[in-house]
C-alpha cells in the first residue's frame, strides 16, 4: 500500500483550543444501538484517525458531527455551537465543517469548476469571479487546475476525490471530515489522494479521518481512535497505539490489517 513517506508530524502543532466536543453521545438505528456513550474532544489542529472493523460505527460517528445523522442522546458541540434540531445551528456548522466521502459524491451535471463554486456562491454569497479564483487556487493545490472545465465523469477516481477535497476546502472549513476517502480507489490513485491529505495536515487543518491507511495514521496523525461495536475501545498516540496496543480486540484488529 502507498505510504505517506514524509515524517512530518513533528512539525505540526496542536493548540489547546477545543474544536469539537462529543459528550455521552448515543445513537440508535431503530432498535439497534450504533453509538454507545461516545466522549471525544478534538482540539484545533489535531489530526485524528478513526479505525476499526466494518460496522463498528466509525462512519456514523463522523457523520453525526455535521448532522448527516441525528444522535438521540448526549451533546455534540462544534466550535461552541451545539447541534440540536435548530436548523440555523446545523447550517452554520455544516458550512464550517468540510466532508469528503468514500464515493466522492461530486455533482455529475456540473463541471469541476461549477462543483467548486456552488457552495461559495450560494452559501458564502461570493461573487462568481472571486469564487472562481478561490476554486482555481485550490485546484492548483490538489494539482489538477487543467481539469477545471471538465465534468466529473471524465476524471479518474483519484482526480475526482481530489476535486471533492478541493470542493470542501473552497468553503474554508475549520474542520475536515474524511469518510474512508481512499477505499473506493485503485492502488495507484490512493497515493495521489493521500499526498493531498498529508499536505492539508501540514497546513494545520483539523482533521478527523476514518481510514484503513495505517501508513497515514502512523506518520500524519497525532491520535488514533479504535472503535468496535459502537464504542471507543482505545485512544492513543500512533506510536503507542501500533507498538503497544492495550486491548485484545485492538491487537486482533491490528494483526488482521497489518499482516494480510
Amino acid at each position, binding site marked *: 500500500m502507498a505510504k505517506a513517506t514524509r515524517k512530518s508530524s513533528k512539525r505540526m502543532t496542536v493548540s489547546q483550543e477545543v474544536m469539537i466536543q462529543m459528550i455521552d453521545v448515543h445513537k440508535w438505528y431503530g432498535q439497534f444501538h450504533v453509538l454507545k456513550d461516545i466522549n471525544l474532544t478534538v482540539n484545533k489542529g489535531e489530526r485524528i484517525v478513526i479505525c476499526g472493523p466494518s460496522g463498528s460505527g466509525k462512519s456514523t460517528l463522523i457523520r453525526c458531527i*455535521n448532522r*448527516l445523522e441525528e444522535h438521540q442522546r448526549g451533546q455534540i458541540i462544534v466550535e461552541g455551537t451545539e447541534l440540536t434540531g435548530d*436548523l440555523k445551528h446545523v*447550517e452554520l456548522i*455544516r*458550512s*464550517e*465543517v*468540510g*466532508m469528503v*466521502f468514500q*464515493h466522492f*459524491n*461530486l*455533482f*455529475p*451535471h456540473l463541471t469541476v469548476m461549477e462543483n467548486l463554486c*456552488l*457552495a461559495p*456562491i*450560494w*452559501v*458564502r*454569497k*461570493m*461573487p*462568481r*469571479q*472571486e469564487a472562481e479564483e478561490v476554486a482555481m487556487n485550490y485546484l492548483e493545490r490538489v494539482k489538477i487546475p487543467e481539469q477545471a472545465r*471538465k*465534468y466529473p*465523469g*471524465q*476524471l479518474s477516481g483519484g482526480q475526482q476525490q481530489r476535486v*471533492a477535497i478541493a*470542493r*470542501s476546502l473552497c*468553503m474554508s472549513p475549520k474542520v475536515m*471530515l474524511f469518510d474512508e476517502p481512499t477505499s473506493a480507489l485503485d492502488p495507484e490513485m490512493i497515493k495521489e489522494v493521500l499526498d493531498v491529505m498529508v499536505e492539508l495536515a501540514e497546513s494545520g487543518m483539523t482533521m478527523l479521518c476514518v481510514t484503513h491507511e495505517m501508513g497515514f495514521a502512523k506518520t500524519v496523525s497525532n491520535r488514533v481512535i479504535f472503535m468496535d461495536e459502537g464504542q471507543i475501545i482505545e485512544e492513543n498516540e500512533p506510536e503507542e497505539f501500533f507498538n503497544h496496543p492495550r486491548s485484545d480486540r485492538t491487537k486482533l484488529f491490528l494483526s488482521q490489517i497489518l499482516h494480510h
Partner: protein
Amino acid sequence: MAAEKKEALVLAKPPAKPPIWNDPRYRALFFQVLVLGGIILLCVFLVHNTLANLARQGIASGFEFLGRTSGFSISMHLISYAEENTYFRAFLVGLLNTLLVSVIGIVLATIFGFILGIARLSKNWLIAKLATVYIETLRNIPLLLQLFFWYFGILRQLPGPRNSIALFDTFFLNIRGLFSPQPIPQPGFWWIPAALGVAIAGIIFLARWARKRQEQTGEQFPVFWTSLGLIIGLPLIATLITGFPLKWNYPELQGFNFQGGLVLIPEFVALVLALSLYTATFIAEIVRAGILGVSHGQTEAAYSLGLRPTPTLRLVIIPQALRIIIPPLTSQYLNLTKNSSLAAAIAYPDLVLVFAGTVLMQTGQAVEIIGITMAVYLTISLLISGLMNWYNKKMALVER
C-alpha cells in the same frame, strides 16, 4: 486440412478466395437482397390484391374525396364547421379536437402526476400510502374501463338540465355536460393581458439582473417571491384601475336546456378525466423513480457543503432528476396522445371517430383514410421523439 495449411505456409501463396457462401460480404448482400425481395414480393402481392378488391367492390381511390361535402355534423368543433363543409374540414375539426384533448390531458396529468409522485415519497406515512394505493389501483385498470366508468357510469347518470347539480349557481353539471360562465371581454379589457405581459417581461429582466448582480457582488435576490408578486399584482392593479372590464355570460335554463355560457360536452369531460387520472399514475412513478434515481450521496454532499434544503433541491437534485424523468415522461405524453383515440368508444369527435369512423363509413376509402390517420399519429410521434433524442444528446451527462 493441416497439410494444406503447411503447404500454404511454405509456398507463401496468396490466400485462396473463400467460397462465395462463406464470404461475409456476399452473405450480407445475399441476406439483404433476400429480405428486400421478400418485402417487394409481399408489397406487390398486397397491392395487387387491394387493387383487385377495390375494383371489384367499385370503391374509388385517390384523395379527391377530401374536397367533397361531408353532410354530417360534429358535436364539438373549435373551428367553424357545418354539414356543407368538406371532408377535409371535418378532418381538421377531428385533428384539432384530438390535439385539444391531448394538450389539456397532458397538462392535468403532469400536474397531478408530479403531486402524486412527490406524495408517494412523502415522509408522512398516511399521504405516502394514500398515493401508493391510488397509483397501484388506477394503473392496473384498463384505461377504456375507466373511460366508460366516467362516461357511462357517472356523467351519463347525471340528472337532466332541469335538475342540474349547481355549484355556487354559476357552474351547472348535468347529462348535457358542464356549463360554466363564459368571460366576455369589455372595452378596456386589453389592459389586463398587457399588464400580464409587462409582468412577464419584468420577471425576465429581474431574473437576469439578479443573476448578474449575484455573479458580481454575491448578493442574492428573492426572485421567486418578487416574480409571484409581479405576476399576480400587476394584472390585479390593472383590473382595479380599469374597473373590472369583464362580463360573464352565465348559462341560463331556457326550456329543456341551458343557453349561453361555456359548455364542455360530457364526452370531453370524461375523456380528459380518464386520460389525465390514468396517465398521472405513470407520471407519478416516473417522477418517483427520477427523484430516487439521484443518489442520496448527492443530497449529503450538498448538505455537508452547507447548502440548505431548498437550494439543494434546486441546484443539485432537480437538474439530475429531470434528466432521468424527461425521456420517459415524453413517452407518456405520446401514450396519452395515442390513447386519446379511445374517444371513439364514447363518441367524442376526435380524429379517429370523425375521420376513421364517419368519413370512412361514408366514402368506403379505407386505405386512404386509415393511412392518413396513421400518418398523423406517426408524425406526432416521430416529431416528439426526434425532439427528445436531440434533448437527450444535449443533456447527457458527460462520461469518459
